Structures are given as C-alpha cells and as structure tokens.
C-alpha cells in the first residue's frame, strides 16, 4: 500500500489558498490548513468593534469557513507577539505600498510551518501564491527568496503557478502530478474564478485584497507617525489603537484619538488606563483619548476637537469634561471650526 502523502497549506481562506488546498485534495494529498493570526486581521478587528458584515451577520473567519467547505482541518496559530517586533518593525525586505512587509511575512510564516512539518512528519508545504499577482511578494525573485529563506526550498509547492516554476520535490517524487497543476499568473482573478467554478467553490471573499491592515495607507500613515514619535517601543495594544478613530497629533509628545461611533467609543474605553480621557456630557459625543502628557494648551485643543465631533458642534460654547489619572475637570470651549487647521493636526 502506498504511503499517504500529507501536506501543510497556508490557508487564509481567500480564493487562491482555498483553490490550492482543493487542488491538493484532488490529487489525494491529506491537507492540514495553517492559519497564522498576526493581530492585523481586519475581520477580527471588525468583530472587536461589534460591526457586522451584513445585518445580523458577524464577520466570519474565512480560513475556518474554507476549512469547513473543503473538510480541511484548520489550525490557528497565534504569532502576534513575535510578529510585531520581528516582522513588522524590522523587515529585511522592506515594506510594500503601506507598512506591509509581505516578503518577510511569508518567510516568517513559512519558517514556522517548516518547524511544524519537521515536528509532525508532514511531507511538504503548499501555498496559494500566484506568480505576478502581487507586486511585492509574488514576483519570481521574491518567490524564490521566500522558498530559500524559509528553509523549505523545493519542499514548497505553489500549485496554481507550478507549471511556470521549477519542479518542486513533491512533483519530482510523484507525490503530486505536475501535469494536473496549473500555470496561472498575473493580477487578474479570471482564471482562478473559472477554476473555482469547475471545482464548485462558490463561497469566497469578494473583493480580493486580503484581510491585513498593514497595506492600508491610512493605517500605514498612523503607524509611521507612531514609530517616528515613540520609536520601536510598541505593544500589540498600541497597534490595535491605530486601527480606531480619528487621530490628531497635538505635539511631538501628545496625540489624540477620537472615537467615530458607539462601537469605537466602547473599544476606546478598554484603553483608558494610562491615558487622558475627554468627552462631552451634555451632548452625544465621542470618547477622546490622549497619549503623552498634555499641556494646558493641548488639553484645550483636545476639548475643542472633541466638541467639534459631538452633537454640540453648532453651539457657541460647549462644556467638555476631562480626566487625567485622578484629576478631573471641565473646560467650556468653542468647538474647533477651522477645517484647514484641523487637517494640519490630522495624522
């Protein structure tokens, strides 16, 4: 009896990784899907804020959904504590259009995968990468670099583009049939969607683009500002706060975060320890948090901006409450009205 071939697949739950897993199943390979949790997943963040993808429907974990569809067991691996210092803050291969260290990210995840492969005796690793699909990480040189630096080398198979790439060990040894793999390349998803149709896969995230905050230009701008003023003394909580609210820099040491809705206010409430709070009692208002040690001028500006985003924005004077540690007070201010000046403070 021939040995059952077992493979580990990186499964985000996007169309490409779902197809890759399914193609492996078609070839009789037993698949375990690995899903790495980096702390930068947008869907996770929506859930924390209590947002729904559709009325009554919570954001789902796409990897688990894909695993359920395909009957592929999914193992979620929490890497966020290592990921931040080792990958996000210090990427050897640099960032993409935002603060996305895509090449280092792939290498890091595949190094972890290689350890699991060795510990548990799996035969090879596959991913849903498509040659030429992403400008930073899926060109030919980075695909080679990722295979090499992860230590997987030719044990790494990309089933969707395999025919355009050098033969891997799983193909060479006949664990999978190269002629039944694919030659998909480029940024269009047309070929993948045709393949999904053939395989009866109808439920996958639309549009494509991934679930990571780091390529987002707004998030990247806030992260760059944070690193410029705080250095690399960063915690996962700091990273979470960057995803929420309107951000304004009042000075080199002081910035403010203004909640945009009830969900964000509730979220910010979890981060009040060690930060100043500003809010309006008389009108529905955002919760504002201040980081750093605000001067009297900073505090007044924060109160004026908070008043602007409260329902008292059209009043001539608004009483605004503040709390810094054990000290509490109130300032009556005119809401901030100068859009140009506000934009200069906006991060």
């Amino acid at each position: 009896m021939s040995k059952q071939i077992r493979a580990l697949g990186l499964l985000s739950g996007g169309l490409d990784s779902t197809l890759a897993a399914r193609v492996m199943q078609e070839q009789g390979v037993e698949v375990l899907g690995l899903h790495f949790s980096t702390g930068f997943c947008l869907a996770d963040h929506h859930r924390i804020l209590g947002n729904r993808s559709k009325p009554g429907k919570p954001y789902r974990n796409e990897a688990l959904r894909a695993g359920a569809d395909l009957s592929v067991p999914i193992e979620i691996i929490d890497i966020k504590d290592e990921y931040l210092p080792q990958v996000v803050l210090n990427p050897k291969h640099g960032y993409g259009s935002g603060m996305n260290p895509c090449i280092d990210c792939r290498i890091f995840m595949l190094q972890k995968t290689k350890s699991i492969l060795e510990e548990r005796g799996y035969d090879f690793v596959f991913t849903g990468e498509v040659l030429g699909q992403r400008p930073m990480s899926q060109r030919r040189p980075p695909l080679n670099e990722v295979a090499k630096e992860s230590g997987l080398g030719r044990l790494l198979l990309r089933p969707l583009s395999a025919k355009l790439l050098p033969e891997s060990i799983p193909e060479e040894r006949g664990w999978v049939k190269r002629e039944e793999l694919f030659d998909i390349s480029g940024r269009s998803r047309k070929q993948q969607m045709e393949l999904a149709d053939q395989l009866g896969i109808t439920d996958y995230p639309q549009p494509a683009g991934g679930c990571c905050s780091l390529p987002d230009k707004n998030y990247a701008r806030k992260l760059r500002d944070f690193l410029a003023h705080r250095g690399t003394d960063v915690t996962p909580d700091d990273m979470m706060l960057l995803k929420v609210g309107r951000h304004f820099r009042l000075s080199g040491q002081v910035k403010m975060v203004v909640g945009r809705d009830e969900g964000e206010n509730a979220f910010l409430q979890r981060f009040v320890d060690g930060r100043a709070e500003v809010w309006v009692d008389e009108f529905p208002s955002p919760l504002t948090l201040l980081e750093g040690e605000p001067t009297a001028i900073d505090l007044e500006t924060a109160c004026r901006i908070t008043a602007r985003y409260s329902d008292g924005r059209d009043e001539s004077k608004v009483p605004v409450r503040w709390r810094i540690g054990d000290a509490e007070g109130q300032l009556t201010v005119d809401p901030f009205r100068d859009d140009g000046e506000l934009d200069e403070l906006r991060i």
Partner: protein
Amino acid sequence: MSGRLASARRRRDDGELRRHLRGALAKEELERLAPNVEVDALGTFCPEPIIRTQEWMARMGAGEIMLLLADDVGVEIDIPAWCLSTGNEYLGLLKAETVYRVFVRRV
C-alpha cells in the same frame, strides 16, 4: 490556464453549512448536558476563542464534551465551521444576553 481536475469531488453545499449552524442538539438537551471541561473565553475575540477550543479539544478524550463561554458574536459561525473542518461534533449554543455557551463533543 492548463491543468486537469481528476474528479468532481463532493463539496458541502451552503444548505448543509446552514443546517450545521443549528447544532446537533435541541436547546432543552443542551441545558441538561454535563460538560467535561469548561473553557472561559469571555472578553476575548477571534481567533482567541478558537485557539482555546483547539488547545482544549486536543487534550480531551473521544466523546468528551467541552463548554466554551464566550461573548464574541463570531463564535456563532466560527465554532460550527471549526467543527466541520476538524470533524468534531457541534452540539449547539445557548445565548443569555451577550454570553454564549457553546457545546462541542470531541470525536
């Protein structure tokens, strides 16, 4: 695109997934269950409830029942999906205000 598909492998349809979300047991049966393990994931969000579920389930014996306490609304869909993917049995959930009590049987 070249490449060949060996078979029309059976795939779960959406209806099957939707039915699975209801769980294997009725509410009254869930209320009478005596779980072997209670796992507290209150105050945590995706993927933490799933990570705790997979860690505990790996230590449990076949047939044993885990009760997961959680307040992340996503457990309504993530735990059934995790059970379908891993082959464990999703028994159902009870919700009281914002707290979910989710029951899973190790297969």
